[in-house]
């Protein structure tokens, strides 16, 4: 599903230099990315999603060499096949939860806002336990509810790959467990591959594999 080879990336004017010789994830696999802060976990996720492009090397996702594609193609690929779940929820405060779940369909011409898509959002919210909050605004929700809403938005397009950047970082243990369960259950339901950044060792056993990004950078292969 994911194959990163001889990957090299650095931010302009920054000493940070990410080098990964090889990183591969199989289709349907669930992988937890760990590592100290600033080691490049989020950068790796952004390279895999096509938000960033490597200085050199290849990023191949779902048999498409994403790193060689132009901006528009990368963006279209991300919309159609990748779901993103950020750490800070990134819900739009002027939209209701229901509207937030449908934002990908509103901002992109690649997706069509169909009755089926709306029904799927309703079902996701039901399973996430936020169905009663659908017509509320994000400011009226608890932290856990907001993160579940952000997760539902990431899953709304039925992506083949789900990239989650520390989605449990702001949550209490109960909500952490609930969010990870929801993430893994829903990914399993649609057969999506999961790559999730986490710092919580308690959650690691629930993933098929745990990859330390710092070890990858030191020449490790995964």
């Amino acid at each position, binding site marked *: 599903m994911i194959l990163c080879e001889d990957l090299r990336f650095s931010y302009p004017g920054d000493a940070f230099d990410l080098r990964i010789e090889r990183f591969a994830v199989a289709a349907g696999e669930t992988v937890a990315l760990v590592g100290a802060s600033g080691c490049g976990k989020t950068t790796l996720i952004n390279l895999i999603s096509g938000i960033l492009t490597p200085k050199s090397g290849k990023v191949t996702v779902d048999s498409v060499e994403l790193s060689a594609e132009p901006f528009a193609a990368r963006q279209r690929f991300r919309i159609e096949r990748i779901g993103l779940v950020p750490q800070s929820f*990134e819900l*739009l405060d*002027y*939209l209701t939860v229901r509207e937030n779940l449908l934002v*990908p369909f509103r*901002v*992109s011409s690649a997706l069509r806002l169909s009755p089926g898509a709306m029904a799927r959002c309703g079902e996701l919210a039901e399973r996430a336990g936020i169905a009663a909050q659908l017509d509320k605004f994000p400011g009226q929700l608890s932290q856990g509810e907001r993160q579940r809403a952000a997760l539902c938005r990431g899953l709304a397009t039925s992506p083949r790959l789900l990239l989650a950047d520390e989605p449990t970082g702001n949550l209490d243990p109960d909500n952490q467990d609930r969010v990870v369960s929801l993430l893994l259950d829903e990914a399993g339901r649609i057969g999506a591959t999961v790559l999730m950044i986490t710092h919580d060792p308690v959650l690691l056993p629930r993933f098929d594999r745990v990859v330390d990004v710092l070890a990858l950078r030191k020449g490790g292969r995964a």
Partner: protein
Amino acid sequence: MNFGGVLYLGWRYLARNRVKTGLLVAAFALVWLLPAGLALVVGKVEAQLRSRAQGTPLLLGQAGSPLELVFNGLYFTKPQVATLPYGETEAVAESGLGTVIPLYARYSAGGHRIVGTTLDYFDFRGLEIREGRGLVELGECVVGATAAERNGIAPGDAVISTPETLFDLAGVYPLKMRVVGVLAPTGTPDDAALFVDLKTAWIIEGLGHGHEDAESLGEESKLPESPDGAVRLNASVVQYNEITEENAGSFHFHGEIADYPVTAAIVVPGDAKGQALLKGRYGKAGGLQLVSPAGEMDELFDTVFSVQRLVLRLLFAIGLATLAIGALVFLLSNRLRRDEFRHLRHLGADPGTLRALVAFEAAFVVAASLVVGGAGLAVLHLAAPMLVRGWVG
């Protein structure tokens, strides 16, 4: 670009931040509305004042402010303007140089000016009786269309002049007048006036009065006979405050009519030569003035327009500042939304979509301000006649 999505998200953002949106729309609307409204109202006032002034060739009055004379003679305001003796108007008429229509616009009834004049005034202004008849007898009045409508007055009703000096026993007493006609509307100050015969106006002034017949009164109503043999009556004699068929004969005037006051007189010269002679005669006459209302309006509006230009320049500067502040609000707001835009990009929005989103929000505020400003202008347009009346009097 998902255009429908852009409109939806833009609208939701504006609706959710309705206080900010409303303030921006209101501020921008004022930027358009204030100068346009000012120009509209000034234009309406100018049209109203000029049309009346252009229809009045000359105005004779006591020396003083020519503008106050014009406002009294044409718009029935400035009731305290200095009066001139009625005899002066007769002198102009007798000169044969023009027709003279005396006016006495000092008193009021129910907030409407009572205008004492002659029947010539109705012909001169082209006033038509819509209901009832014209003035025939002392104590009658004809009411302008607006005054009649506002007070629900019809022929057969009565109106009472407003007492001017409530605590002055020797002052002007109110006179009850019979309404005999209502004028057709003209869209001029005549609509708000009450017209009476000049003599009726002088009775309100207290220069003429009616009372019980002195001959039939007992000794208890009389004061000691004066050295010249005239009968003098005391305060027990009933003085009439209404002119009826029964008591009309008892009304009489004391002193010389020629000395009685008028506030202004419309002078309609017979020809250009007559006009030139009249202007020459009264140009240097002490105590009196003969003014051209159109000329006075030209002078007035020269001043008004120069002030208006200054105000418009100030409004332009304020408008620019408001627009700059509005633009700053947009810029700062968009800066605060940087994370939101970044995430929308991650979710699939291309740069064009985000630019369209911001442009839509700005365009909506500008368009809404134009609509609000336009609506305000329409309301002002409808209310302008009322404002003009309020300003002119």
